[in-house]
């Protein structure tokens, strides 16, 4: 028993949540090991991806510094896409050019590798090429993990599960039920290489300024969300479909991505580009209601593994990093009294409850259900808006009053006034 491999803390998964936890712990002198199944941290990791700066405070100060970021976002567009058109709003603001920048487009394979380097500098040990097979449990307390290395059992006071959306670890401990097909989105993305000047010209930016476009609407089945993000020398084009919509529509995320590339609003933005990589990943979208139990004796769950994604605001990695930091801080407090029981580790939940993480997830807790049940919201309204815009903007001798009447008639026929009022109330209730 004496030659057991032992650390203070085991972090499973070298993504933002795990690396944030490891960095904070290592900085405080805690002996922490991060176990990553990929060949390097980031090898398996995917996001859109927009990365928010604020969450790095107290973890890696002066972010981005030497971190590999692409462009800082100064303009955000939102499109409601119909078959051949879109209606959109945009916000471009010179304030977004001020440092510290609000957010950057990033590549996770590069960013996570860098972040792992920071954790190592702080004193964390990062082990790649290693799969955690299962937790080691004794008297209902997690005391370590089994890995796929020979003699690969590792022991610790606390295991932090940062093992991502599939979190087999928290599932095997019974902290959560299996994910439901309505609670995950399959995101497919292509990184499309383009000349820097062409990107600047097409998106009307200069230097390292970037643009994001979030896309939903009747072009897509169900509650699909698409996106276009500018990187330095490429554009990330992606689409996220709820698995239930994939099953029902019999169209998978790659099929949809391909038809998106042909859309007249999108095709000119990526024309002449060369696809560099094709990526697929799951996004946990169940929100607050589907969050697992976060703590048990010797165990805490962070990031995607804990369903911490605010999909309506395109936030995830910042919630992950903040949760990783809180888990680390909770460990430091628990270490003072040498008590790693659920009762003490519960402080992690209190910290989350008092922060934007749970406050935001709670605010939108009814939204996933609403968008799912009510197909009108992302289908009929966007179509109607596109039709109305086209009608009003087409000059063809028909008086405007008559055009308005036609639009109202279609709206009443397609949706109905009482439904519109109901929808307004439902949306208000879901986001208030």
């Amino acid at each position, binding site marked *: 028993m004496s030659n057991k491999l032992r650390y203070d803390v085991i972090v499973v998964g070298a993504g933002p949540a795990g690396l944030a936890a490891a960095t904070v712990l290592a900085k405080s002198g805690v002996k922490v090991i991060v176990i990553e199944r990929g060949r390097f941290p980031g090898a398996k990791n*995917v996001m859109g991806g927009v990365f928010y700066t604020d969450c790095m405070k107290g973890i890696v100060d002066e972010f981005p510094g030497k971190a590999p970021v692409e462009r800082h976002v100064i303009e955000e567009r939102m499109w409601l896409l119909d078959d051949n058109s879109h209606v959109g709003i945009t916000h471009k603001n010179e304030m977004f050019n001020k440092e510290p920048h609000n957010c950057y487009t990033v590549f996770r394979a590069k960013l996570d590798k860098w972040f792992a380097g920071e954790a190592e500098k702080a004193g964390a040990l990062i082990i790649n090429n290693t*799969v955690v097979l299962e937790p080691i449990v004794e008297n209902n307390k997690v005391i370590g993990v089994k890995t796929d290395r020979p003699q690969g059992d590792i022991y610790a006071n606390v295991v932090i599960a940062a093992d991502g959306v599939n979190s087999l670890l928290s599932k095997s401990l019974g902290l959560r039920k299996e994910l439901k*097909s309505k609670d*995950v989105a399959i995101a497919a993305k292509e990184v499309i290489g383009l000349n820097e000047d062409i990107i600047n010209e097409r998106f009307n930016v200069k230097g390292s300024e970037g643009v994001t476009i979030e896309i939903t609407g009747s072009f897509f089945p169900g509650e699909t969300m698409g996106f276009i993000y500018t990187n330095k020398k490429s554009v990330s084009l992606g689409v996220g479909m709820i698995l239930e919509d994939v099953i029902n529509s019999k169209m998978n*995320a790659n099929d949809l991505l391909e038809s998106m*590339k042909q859309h007249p609003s999108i095709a000119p933005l990526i024309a002449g580009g060369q696809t560099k990589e094709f990526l*697929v990943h799951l996004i946990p979208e169940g929100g607050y209601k589907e969050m697992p139990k976060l703590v048990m004796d010797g165990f805490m769950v962070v990031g995607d593994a804990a369903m911490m994604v605010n999909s309506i605001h395109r936030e995830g990695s910042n919630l992950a990093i903040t949760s990783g930091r809180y888990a680390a801080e909770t460990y430091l407090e628990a270490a003072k009294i040498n008590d790693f029981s659920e009762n003490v580790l519960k402080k992690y939940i209190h910290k989350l409850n008092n922060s934007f993480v749970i406050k935001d997830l709670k605010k939108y807790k009814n939204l996933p259900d609403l968008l799912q049940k009510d197909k009108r919201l992302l289908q009929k309204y966007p179509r109607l808006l596109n039709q109305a815009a086209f009608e009003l903007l087409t000059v063809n001798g028909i008086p405007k009053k008559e055009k308005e009447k036609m639009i109202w008639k279609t709206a009443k026929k397609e949706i109905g006034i009482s439904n519109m009022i109901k929808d307004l109330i439902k949306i208000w209730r879901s986001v208030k």
Partner: protein
Amino acid sequence: MEECKMRLEDKLYLNGYKIDEIGGSHLHIKDPDVCKTCELKQCLYICACKVYELDENTDKIVINYDACVECGTCRIACDNIDWKYPRGGFGIAYKFG
């Protein structure tokens, strides 16, 4: 416009995989008989990398595990799939992510 569509094989070819030739597939069908009576056969179309294919001759599901990017979609969509991660270091390694 149809000719502009990029073939899935060409897309997957861009990705960096390290195939586990020794360990073999990390994905398995639990009970092939269940597939025979499965009407939906959602595994054949939900996967963005088309890992699952139906062998017309044997009527069995074939698993192209070397195309798998380990997203977990099939794990959630079907109870009859025994889903594990590839051995440490194997499988997809994204360059961009």
